[in-house]
């Protein structure tokens, strides 16, 4: 099955107009020795067969809306997505358009991005947002790039808290190889117990950027205001990698004095989809707009006096600046940004706060019940949002295998990333988890510890 709408007769007429005899004749400039390789691929399927084969493959997975009850988070969260989100995303006018290079016929995408930028700025408490990045991890890496560029490479130290998501730190390491950036704080053996003040000692006059996560990997919520002040005193910028749902409840990063706010937008109406596509959001203060990477939509007027929107400050971007561009990014996560904007506009301030509070209360109920179990306990005492680290009486893999037998997807094994947190799991609870599910989790673990 192909999607080629040209009949053999039409094809022949077209070949004649071109002045060649056959389709093969169009490829004379391709080296003959390698021309028309025989591809060893399965024969074509019809749509009916493909639909059934893909469904069969999907049955090879266990999913969190089907057979599994999930308490897994660590950077991707199972939230309810209102039906209207996907109905609107499936408008061909949105999903089959490209980057809005021609603003006269792209105002739908442009206004939607402009509103997305506004929603992200409002949520983070920042002055502006770009049109988005690939995901939370690459948004952190772009923040590092931006800070490095802000000081024109004259400050080479980047302090990144060990409680930033391990995969985000890994991406930062990849992006900064050979750039001359010295990463400090990126240490799996660091003291994880103490609060933000433990990072103060790492800040110096050579520090370009401090990156902390809010809530941190372990779900802990700290007021970073004092730390941010310390970093600013050294002349460094501060980036907060945030969970957007948490921002409905807790102090905004803008209020705490952050210079850059990035994060993973997946919780805002984007399905888990085995890890992507997600959404990296990126907000900052006005003074840094020229150093910020990514697409940017601004308001203007058209020749008829109508309010309209265009891609602006494009001179910062790769197609103009080429090798002098801060970043090579040439797209955004258009449709994912649209999903998050639709989600935020459906929920509004009331709905988002309700989701955040449900997450908070349910996670705290779960934490309280679990910590009563013999051999289990909460690792940390700081306030937390919807995730918490639980120390367990045995290896997490074994406990999770047992939970899985009961249809429960257990928490993330923190021992993979932090040697000191062997036998510790990170559990996430969202509005999707009912009290019955939490009680079932507690019961299964209780039984297991009696065995």
């Amino acid at each position, binding site marked *: 099955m*192909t*999607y080629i709408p*040209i009949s053999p007769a*039409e094809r022949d007429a*077209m070949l004649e107009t071109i002045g060649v005899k056959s389709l093969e*004749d*169009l490829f004379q400039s391709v080296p003959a020795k390698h021309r028309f*390789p025989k591809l060893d*691929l399965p*024969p074509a399927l019809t*749509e009916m067969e493909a*639909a059934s084969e893909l469904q069969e493959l*999907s049955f090879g*997975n*266990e*999913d*969190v809306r089907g057979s599994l009850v999930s308490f*897994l988070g660590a950077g991707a969260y199972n939230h309810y997505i*209102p039906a*209207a989100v996907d109905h*609107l995303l499936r408008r061909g*006018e*949105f999903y*089959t358009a*490209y980057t809005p*290079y021609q603003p*006269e016929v792209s*105002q739908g995408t442009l206004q939607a*991005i402009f509103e997305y930028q*506004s929603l992200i700025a409002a949520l983070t408490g920042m002055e502006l947002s770009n049109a988005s990045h690939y995901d939370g991890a690459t948004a952190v890496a772009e923040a590092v790039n931006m800070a490095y560029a802000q000081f024109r490479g004259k400050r080479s130290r980047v302090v990144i808290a060990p409680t930033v998501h391990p995969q985000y730190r890994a*991406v930062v390491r*990849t992006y900064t*190889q050979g750039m001359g950036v010295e990463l400090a704080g990126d240490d799996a053996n660091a003291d994880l117990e103490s609060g933000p003040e433990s990072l103060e000692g790492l800040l110096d006059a050579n520090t370009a950027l401090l990156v902390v996560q809010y809530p941190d990997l372990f779900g802990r*919520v700290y007021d970073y205001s004092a730390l941010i002040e310390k970093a600013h005193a050294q002349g460094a910028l501060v980036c907060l990698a945030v969970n957007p749902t948490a921002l409905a409840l807790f102090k905004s990063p803008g*209020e705490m004095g952050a210079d850059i706010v990035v994060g993973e937008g997946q919780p805002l109406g984007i399905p888990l989809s085995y*890890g*992507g*596509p*997600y959404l990296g959001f990126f907000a900052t203060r006005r003074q840094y707009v020229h150093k910020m990477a990514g697409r940017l939509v601004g308001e*203007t007027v*058209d*020749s008829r006096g109508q309010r309209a929107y*265009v891609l602006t*400050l494009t001179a910062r971007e790769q197609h103009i*600046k*080429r*090798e002098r*561009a801060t970043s*090579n990014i040439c*797209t955004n996560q258009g*449709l*994912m940004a649209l999903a998050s904007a639709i989600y935020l*506009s459906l929920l*509004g*301030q009331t*709905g988002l706060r*309700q989701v955040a509070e*449900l997450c908070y209360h349910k996670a*705290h109920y779960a934490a309280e019940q679990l910590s009563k179990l013999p051999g289990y306990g909460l690792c940390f005492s700081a306030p937390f949002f919807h995730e918490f680290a639980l120390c367990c009486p045995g290896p997490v893999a074994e406990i999770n295998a047992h939970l899985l037998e009961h249809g429960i997807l257990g928490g993330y094994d923190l021992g993979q990333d932090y040697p000191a947190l062997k036998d510790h799991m990170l559990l996430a609870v969202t*509005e999707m988890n009912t009290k019955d599910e939490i009680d079932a989790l507690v019961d299964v673990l209780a039984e297991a510890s009696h065995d």
Partner: protein
Amino acid sequence: MTDNPRIVEKTLFELSSPGRTGVTFPAADVPAAKLPKDLLRRELPLPELAEVDVVRHYMRLSKFNYSVDGGFYPLGSCTMKYNPKINEDTARLPGFAFVHPLQPVETVQGSLALMYTMQEWLKEISGFAAISLQPAAGAHGELTGVLIMRAYHRSRGDTKRVKMLIPDSAHGTNPASSGMFGLEVVQVPSDARGNVDLSALRSACDETVVGLMLTNPNTLGLFDEHVEQVAEIVHKCGGLVYGDGANLNALLGILRPGDVGIDVMHFNLHKTFSTPHGGGGPGSGPVGVAAHLADFLPAPLVAIVEKAKDGEPPLYGFVEPRQTIGRVKAFHGHFGMLVRAFTYIAMHGPDGLRQIAEYAVLNANYIKARIQKAYRIPHERICMHEFVAEGRFDGSDVRALDISKRLMDYDFHPPTNYFPLIVHEALMVEPTETENKDSLDAFADALLAIAQEARTNPELLHNAPSRTLFGRMDEVKAARELVLCCWLPEDYEKG
């Protein structure tokens, strides 16, 4: 007039009314926990709308967009082909859409089997030895490729290599990807036939060269006739050849880049394999490498970790390449886009893939043949999947931009304009294989009519578009005033 512009569609914030909401959630079924007072947020200035408000707002916005579903979108270098509807359905199967990226591998064998097969298929299509599905877009794949090239040289103790050779017809992302890692970009000119100038290439090649970033077919839509020699020259000085896979649509079943000396290449699943462009993303940019670079791919890759036995299927899992450059993004790449591309390849099979390239090339040459009497085309050659024409006429002040805007009045999306930079007033046309002859003819007719109008009534072009909902934009105002956000009115109750 510009001080009080007419509002065509209010923003979400202007549509907001306190007390509305589009969704409610069940009351808590657990006791309320104490909230940490000092850490709480005071106000949350998000708009408040009902579901119908939101739906109508976005429906109205959607009507302001041109799209592939709506019409012909010959945007050069972007491969705006039709996006099959079945792909949208398969990506949303609950078994794919509601799977957490950190689930134990035993519970995600469906996803992993799909990813493993996708790696195998892309290897077969491109002639490479190994594939990483992790990069999120074409530019992200380039960045990955550049890091792999550099890591390869360093692993051999070869640290002198700091130069990246880039033909003058390259995409802007090529130099930007190299520049991000401090490499010095050396431009290589094209020859009279639009190929890489071999003698210039020879003299640029020395022991400081990381490699060459080659787009083939290039951005003129021309296949580089000396591709094997180009690779040989670069290899001779110890450099590697990066293939920009943006134009792979022209090569499916025609040529495997891995067979002609390309060492590393990114794919654009959102171009070649029909995953929708989404108004600017998400894309998907897997990277393929020849055997000598396989150890450097981003981690992790999908592999068979336990062979099939006793009629049981194999166990798929993750492996880390030995000298990996690390991770380039969280989790496993844009899985949802992989499902779409997988569906597309499965439905085409080997013959269908070759037809894609054949008809993409047929359509481009057909439009070119139909308009070449009216528009100058810099290189007299059969083109591949796209071609570049000059959007200017002797003795006329009409420019490529005017022609592009006038095409909107004929209900077409304009071609890419002012790219590549080496052609004056470039109009870059890529029809793709999914257009019928009627739309190709209508587009060619429109271009011919516009060439006439340029002579008889140039004002029509300068003032275009006039039949669209919006007219030309004041780009200067946007950049000068830099209004990047809308806000709730000052007196709004912020919850």
